[in-house]
């Protein structure tokens, strides 16, 4: 709050009412409802529900399928985060370095930000199409019989490729802006001290980029967990079957296809706890950031 604030008692409340109302109705009510229904078992035909305590939770954690999905989510998140971050870092370092065409490169590397995940997924479906997809043919050339939607690992590969493609621009923008905020004097001093570009990068640039990288790490984990829904849904063509899926996709499938409100809600609550843990982790990193800047 500003020191010289206004003292009207009613105006700020009026200003806050729209935000608070929307949040109460569309955030806290559903969130509370999720927690409540995670303790109930719904009759599949809609005739009421009965209190079952922690049964929904114990069902989740003892389910082999849930563990399989959770494991896939971990691997998927790691791959998407790692690949899109390293690719974007490489491109940002180069884009920061070149003089000619820097602006053009920036535009060419960032515009994919605006492409919707399901549209990216649709392009993935075409590129990896089993009979005529150019990428399938390309991989077939190397003896890889790529079967999107049939082979578990092939589908997972396509999911990673499309998700990385979609996420590189965001990371690129942040890395480039981080690089450009490194003071000129620091760069010049580094130039004088060290002629090797690689060493300069790891000794000076990378530590100075660490706050951006930490921040992006969280952004990317959240992206891989939640925002890839459209990519996954299009690549498996709405039919998960035997295909890999993430935890968020399972919440959707169990809730809307399986009509299992209790189980789906319990999964939601598990995810909420996961996100909260991530946020706490992020705040601790933010504290560390202060030492760098």
């Amino acid at each position, binding site marked *: 709050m500003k020191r010289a604030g206004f003292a009207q008692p009613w105006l700020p409340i009026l200003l806050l009412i729209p935000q608070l109302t*929307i949040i109460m*109705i*569309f955030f806290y009510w559903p969130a509370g409802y999720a927690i409540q229904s995670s303790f109930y078992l719904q009759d599949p035909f809609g005739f009421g529900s009965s209190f079952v305590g922690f049964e929904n939770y114990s069902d989740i954690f003892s389910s082999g399928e849930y563990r399989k999905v959770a494991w896939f989510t971990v691997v998927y998140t790691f791959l998407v985060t790692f690949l899109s971050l390293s690719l974007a870092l490489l491109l940002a370092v180069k*884009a920061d370095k070149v003089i000619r065409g820097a602006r053009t490169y920036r535009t060419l*590397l960032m515009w994919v*930000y*605006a492409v919707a995940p399901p549209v990216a997924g649709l392009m993935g479906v*075409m590129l990896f199409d089993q009979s005529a997809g150019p990428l399938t043919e390309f991989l077939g050339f190397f003896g890889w019989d790529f079967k999107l939607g049939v082979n578990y690992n092939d589908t997972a590969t396509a999911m990673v490729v499309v998700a990385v493609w979609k996420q590189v621009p965001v990371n690129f923008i942040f890395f480039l802006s981080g690089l450009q905020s490194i003071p000129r004097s620091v760069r010049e001093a580094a130039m004088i001290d060290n002629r090797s570009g690689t060493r300069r990068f790891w000794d000076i640039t990378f530590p100075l980029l660490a706050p951006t990288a930490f921040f992006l790490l969280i952004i990317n984990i959240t992206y891989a967990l939640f925002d890839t829904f459209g990519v996954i849904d299009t690549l498996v063509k709405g039919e998960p079957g035997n295909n890999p899926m993430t935890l968020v996709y399972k919440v959707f499938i169990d809730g809307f296809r399986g009509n299992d409100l209790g189980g789906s809600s319990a999964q*939601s609550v598990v995810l909420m706890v996961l996100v909260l843990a991530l946020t706490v982790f992020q705040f601790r990193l933010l504290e560390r950031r202060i030492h760098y800047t």
Partner: protein
Amino acid sequence: MADIAETIATPKPAPTPKIKWEAVTDHAILIAGALFMLLPVLATFTTSSHDPVTIHREGLQLAIGDQMGTNFDKALFEKGGFTDNVNGITMLMNSFILGIGFAVGKIVIGMMAAYAIVYFRLRFATFAFWIIFTTLLLPLEVRILPSYEVIQSMGLTNTYTGLILPLIASATATFFFRQFFRSVPEELVEAARIDGAGPVKFFIDILIPLSRTMIAALFIIMFVFGWNQYLWPTLITTDENLFTLVRGIRQIIQVYSDGNSIPEYGQAMALAIIAMLPPVLIVVFFQNWFVKGLTESDK
């Protein structure tokens, strides 16, 4: 930094122009990256100019064919391609309604709330702050089924209200404007008060004009975010007249996976291009604002 790199790379006065292999590698990497980003969309675009049989037999096309006009015409104006009773124009309209409605709603509500939190002495300010900022933690995807049940119980399925309002229920804009308002010099409020300006006048005549760039930046980000929504529109709109373009992509996929007849690939690709075009153009043309908004909102 460029001139220094050059002087160090060539310490001796060597006027003969040498090929700088390092620069060549740099450009090669950047060009490869740009192609990686560009090629899938380019292939989609060129494919949208062919007839479905060619595409079905030979896959994505890299040359421009002669069916471009037909395909885009069908995608925009013909009902009953991938959906039964809605054409591309209606979906385009719905996408704009969702994108603009979401962005405007979020900005207006967020600015008001941020103004109240930053500029007023409020007893429960801290409490309000935490109530609002907890929403940053949990994306809609996490609480999707209960949200759907709540909206359904309110009878808001298949309405624009049910489509837009639940998406607004997070505090990104409030947080963004709070950060910005806090960076506005304190002297401005003091000067305004000395001149006898009340809180409403200060907000409308001073703070909003000052925030213009910020509003533009946030509008671009929020418009793209709203336009690209997929999961929520899929659940909440079963009436085809409310389909957005991105929601329409799901219909394409379903026709595609049925596999009974040859799908209208060309039309599907045309629809995908139409779905991409508005947000991409906005991001490209206003990229300075957009980059500023993106990198400053999350820090």
